[in-house]
């Protein structure tokens, strides 16, 4: 597991108060919403705040949000992509 993905999982667990869940329990490609981790719309807002707070990455529209917050893989790819753009 890459350091970035592991960090993301730790931050999600802490920010969303996911009791009894360890970073290892979250699959990189599993959906974060619905049948996957079971997050809801308030969590989506928290994830948008988390991305900006820890990585300086802004999600400004709903379509991007749906795509980027789909899984840990999608989040980490978006962070790396934005960092590359801002180099």
């Amino acid at each position, binding site marked *: 597991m890459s350091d970035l993905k592991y960090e993301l999982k730790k931050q999600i667990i802490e*920010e*969303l108060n996911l*009791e009894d869940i360890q970073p290892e329990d979250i699959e990189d490609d599993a959906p974060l919403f619905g049948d996957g981790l*079971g997050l809801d719309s*308030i969590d989506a807002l*928290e994830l*948008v*705040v988390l991305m*900006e*707070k820890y990585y300086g990455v802004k999600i400004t529209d709903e379509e991007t949000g749906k795509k980027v917050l789909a899984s840990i893989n999608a989040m980490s790819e978006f962070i790396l992509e934005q960092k590359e753009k801002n180099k």
Partner: protein
Amino acid sequence: MYINAASTISHQPTFRNAGFSSNLRKLDPSSGLITPDYGDFIPAMERRRMSHVQKMAIACSLDCLQQAGIQQPDAIIVGTSMGCSINTKNFLDKILAATNGPLSPTSFIVSTHNTIAGQIALSLKNHGYNMTHTQNSLSFEQSLIDGILTIENGAQNVLVGGADEEEDTIYNMRARLKNEEIHLTCGASFFILSKNQDSITSARLVDVASFGLIDNTTGTIKNFLDTNNTLAEEIDLVLFAVSDQENKNDLKSIFQPWQMFDYQEITGTYYTNSSFAMHYAVDILSNKGHSIFGDKVKNILVCNNLIPGNLGLMLLKN
């Protein structure tokens, strides 16, 4: 109006313990809250955003519905003085710590007073009337009055409760601003108020009244009793909370010392502790245990004068 279920989480062994009034001891204010396993009542994914006050309220609400054998109340009405004070403190801390970044939406959402009644409704998937009353030490009495009016307007069963949680900052602020070093406790008490008497009815709520800015406590109590065709000597037990000795003397001018019991000795101090006092009264009247006040208690007056000028009165009979 009938009370068909009652449930309390407090610093005393009250939860799912009918007859508790027979063996409560004087409360040590530094004691901890006695809670059930909230996992039995609230799924983990819902529980993670909740502070004490929300978890207590939901557990008591579900317990009440189970006792009364009903799936959905027609209304959910909650009285709280301080609301979700722990989450409010967290939200304020995050504002102070924030620089230019966005603020967490959850902290705001779960810090409003009406989060408690809202979370109960979400938990039950209830779409009925949902109301929160915050009126300082009279928040619970206001909720009860709303519950009675809701039933008079056609509802059959109404869930009414009072809930508050302790928070160190509030204690410290009071200590600094008012020079009052009162160790606040916390609790939640919920009831099913029903139009109809039933085999599960524990007590009858004859009347509730709430008064602000009063300067004549004795006259107000006498008028309340007159309105309900009850003589002071017919009251078997007065459960009272007073702010000072002067208020206690007012009560002593109406009632005999043997009729009076300071309910803060068992509830501790929080601004909706009259809801705990009402459950205490219901438990005594239902006679499931052997009350220290004897087995012949039939009429109980709960007299909430916790804050000077604020007076809440509740008359209960078996």
